[in-house]
């Protein structure tokens, strides 16, 4: 009897132990732990065919409601006997008002029509305590492109006053249908709007690029406007860099200091090879980053850095805490991948430059990354390493790689609370497939399709000196034949946590030189086969909206960082 009781006691103790563990395990599976992404998915709702949105440009959170702003598009067809050519024009703005659960509440249309004339919508920004709808119009008689702004009351979404013409730029006869030349950026406190006009904003032909490269200087025009639609300052034909300079970014701070970043490509020396020394030869041909700071008074400061370096991509971001603009670029290795990160900090108010930082990845870091493997349950396979150049096969050992193959795209720059930087980068490459088809007579016809592949996402943490402290790695692969979408992920950062989201999955990225796994999002309550596009819309550093559009429905979801 005693023996039986002891045995039962043991069984009961074991049962109690098990029961005490299971609920906590069960609870962890059901709830999202600290540091994960909050995901709120709304109900898919039907849209009328005539109100369908071609793309979404902005989103705002006002009180407890969210406003997603999109643009309709319409096609105009030109017919030439048997040939019909369609041209798409962006038209009316559509504003969807959503509640905190991402359910549809109301839709408002802001027509792209001024006094019976069709104009094209650009974007809608928050300026002051109002919304500002931006439109552009190509006047084919005056040969000018105009930028218009229509102010809108933020609560009632009703138009306020007449539209303003705020900027203009000449266009040529060939530019009658050109897209918007203007770039608009609003300061963090929404008090000022910085408009620039630069032809590098629109695609240009090879001939035009050559003509631009032969020009001595690159020029642009700018306007700085406040929330009351008063002009603070403007400049026309302002020079920045040589003719082939490509505008990379623009930013303005709350005080109205404006900053532009450009990349000036190397130019070949003309004529016979001179007998100049190496330094003069290099000075003539080196590439560099050029920056121009313009104060609200019009005072300009020019600076250049990164001389002689070639970059795959560059970006800049303003740190509102320090007033510094950080320029970050991926240094090209010339072998199909970045070999390091360049960074430079400039104080926007004083124009004071920090030290340049050129951080090479080095063999050790590249080797460490190459040994990483995808998580066990991941569907993504590790990309094959780059093929060795046959020509160099017979040459001396090239040694281990010091560059990351296919790493060519720079993503976002985030600031930590201690003013260090977290940057996201992505591998990207293209491949072409040629298809041959035969008709009934045996005649062959071929067509070539270019596939764009968006690969692994690598995040780097840079300290204040621009030195790489550590990295985070996410295995990822997505490809599309529909053209280059630049990048297929978005990132959020807050309280020391970085989150990366693709259209189907997301998660926290740990910057500990290891692989991070991202988890699939909730299954979208929309017919996947009929999805036309899925897009992330930036709301703030800690929140993003995602919209999935099918032919007849829209579905909004909200992703936000858990703030513990």
């Amino acid at each position, binding site marked *: 009897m005693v023996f039986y009781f002891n045995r039962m006691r043991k069984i009961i103790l074991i049962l109690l132990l098990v029961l005490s563990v299971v609920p906590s395990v069960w609870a962890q599976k059901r709830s999202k732990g600290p540091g994960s992404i909050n995901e709120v998915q709304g109900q898919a709702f039907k849209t009328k065919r005539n109100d369908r949105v071609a793309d979404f440009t902005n989103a705002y959170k006002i009180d407890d409601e969210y406003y997603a702003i999109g643009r309709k598009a319409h096609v105009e067809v030109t017919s030439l006997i048997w040939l019909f050519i369609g041209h798409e024009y962006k038209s009316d703005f559509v504003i969807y008002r959503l509640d905190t659960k991402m359910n549809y509440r109301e839709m408002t249309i802001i027509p792209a029509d001024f006094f019976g004339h069709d104009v094209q919508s650009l974007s809608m920004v928050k300026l002051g305590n109002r919304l500002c709808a931006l439109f552009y119009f190509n006047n*084919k008689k005056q040969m000018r492109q105009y930028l218009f702004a229509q102010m809108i009351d933020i609560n009632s979404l009703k138009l306020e006053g*007449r539209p303003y013409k705020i900027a203009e730029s000449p266009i*040529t006869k060939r530019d009658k249908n050109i897209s918007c030349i203007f770039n608009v950026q609003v300061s963090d406190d929404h008090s000022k709007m910085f408009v620039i006009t630069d032809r590098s904003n629109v695609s240009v032909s090879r001939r035009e690029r050559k003509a631009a490269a032969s020009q001595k*200087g690159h020029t642009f025009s700018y306007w700085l*406007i406040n929330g009351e639609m008063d002009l603070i300052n403007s400049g026309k034909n302002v020079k920045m860099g040589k003719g082939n300079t490509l505008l990379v970014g623009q930013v303005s701070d709350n005080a109205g200091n404006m900053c532009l970043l450009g990349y000036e490509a190397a130019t070949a020396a003309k004529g016979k090879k001179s007998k100049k020394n190496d330094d003069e030869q290099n000075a003539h041909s080196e590439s560099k980053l050029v920056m121009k700071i313009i104060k609200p008074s019009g005072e300009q400061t020019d600076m250049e850095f990164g001389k002689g370096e070639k970059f795959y991509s560059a970006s800049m971001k303003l740190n509102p805490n320090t007033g510094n603009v950080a320029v970050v670029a991926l240094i090209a290795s010339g072998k199909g991948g970045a070999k390091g990160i360049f960074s430079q900090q400039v104080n926007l108010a004083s124009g004071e430059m920090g030290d340049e930082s050129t951080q090479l990845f080095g063999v050790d870091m590249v080797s460490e990354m190459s040994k990483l493997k995808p998580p066990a349950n991941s569907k993504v396979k590790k990309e094959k390493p780059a093929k060795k150049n046959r020509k160099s096969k017979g040459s001396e050992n090239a040694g281990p790689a010091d560059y990351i193959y296919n790493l060519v795209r720079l993503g976002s720059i985030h600031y930590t609370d201690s003013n260090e930087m977290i940057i996201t980068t992505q591998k990207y490459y293209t491949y072409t497939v040629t298809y041959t088809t035969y008709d009934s007579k045996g005649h062959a016809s071929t067509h070539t399709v270019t596939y764009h592949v968006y690969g692994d996402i690598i995040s780097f943490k840079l300290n204040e000196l621009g030195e790489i402290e550590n990295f985070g790695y996410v295995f990822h692969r997505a490809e599309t034949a529909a053209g280059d979408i630049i990048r297929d992920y978005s990132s959020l950062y807050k309280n020391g946590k970085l989150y990366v989201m693709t259209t189907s999955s997301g998660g926290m990225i740990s910057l500990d030189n290891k692989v991070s796994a991202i988890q699939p999002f909730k299954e979208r309550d929309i017919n996947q086969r009929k999805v036309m596009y899925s897009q992330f819309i930036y709301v703030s550093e800690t929140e993003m909206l995602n919209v999935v559009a099918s032919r007849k429905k829209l579905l909004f979801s909200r992703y936000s960082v858990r703030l513990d």
Partner: protein
Amino acid sequence: MLLLPLFMNAQTRKNSSDEPDDNQIEKYLKDGRGVSRKNLIRFRLGSAAAGYFGLSYERKVVGNIGVEAGFYVRPFSYFLFEEMRLNDGITGKKLSIDLQSVHGGMGLLLHPKYYFSGKQKRMNSGYFMGLRGTYRTFNADVSVYSNQIGEFPQKDVKASSTAILFTCGSHQRLGSRMVWGIEWGMGVGWDAYKKLDYGTMDANNKPVIQHTNGVSKFTSGYIMVDLLFGFLF
């Protein structure tokens, strides 16, 4: 070709002309294209070449669905050409008909269409597909062929023609108020001729004239290309 003037006219201070301006918006929008219009009156060159003169009115009634309705008269006799028939009236068990000339009569047009491009409710431009129905009356000089005796001419036969064509086409702006466009169509038509006489053989193998008091019907295929000009208002 491309760029703004270099270094010349560089402006580093604001100019009063750069101030945001809400007074002269209409000036910036004037480029000869005119405002958007909802109504369109059309003149069909193809119909005119076939002798039918008239106008049609079109408007988008619901969303991207438009309806065109027209009325035509035929003041002259056989003009340039008749609408092309794929098989010239060959049907029926006994008769075939050859249209020699056409005169008089009138025509009605009803053409609902769906616009794939262009702004809603605006008639400025668009690419469409539609179903065009026409009803025409006319007097015709014909030659009737029977399977027994050859050609038998007849004059002033009263006739009507009904056709339904599947169409596609587009129109685009020409200046501020005018549009021009092109339309393609393919379909089927039914011609009806009243009181046709035709020749036949009697029991003794002698040729006799057979009178019909009713209507002789013929079915034809149609193809059509039309050039259109319109006025927006």
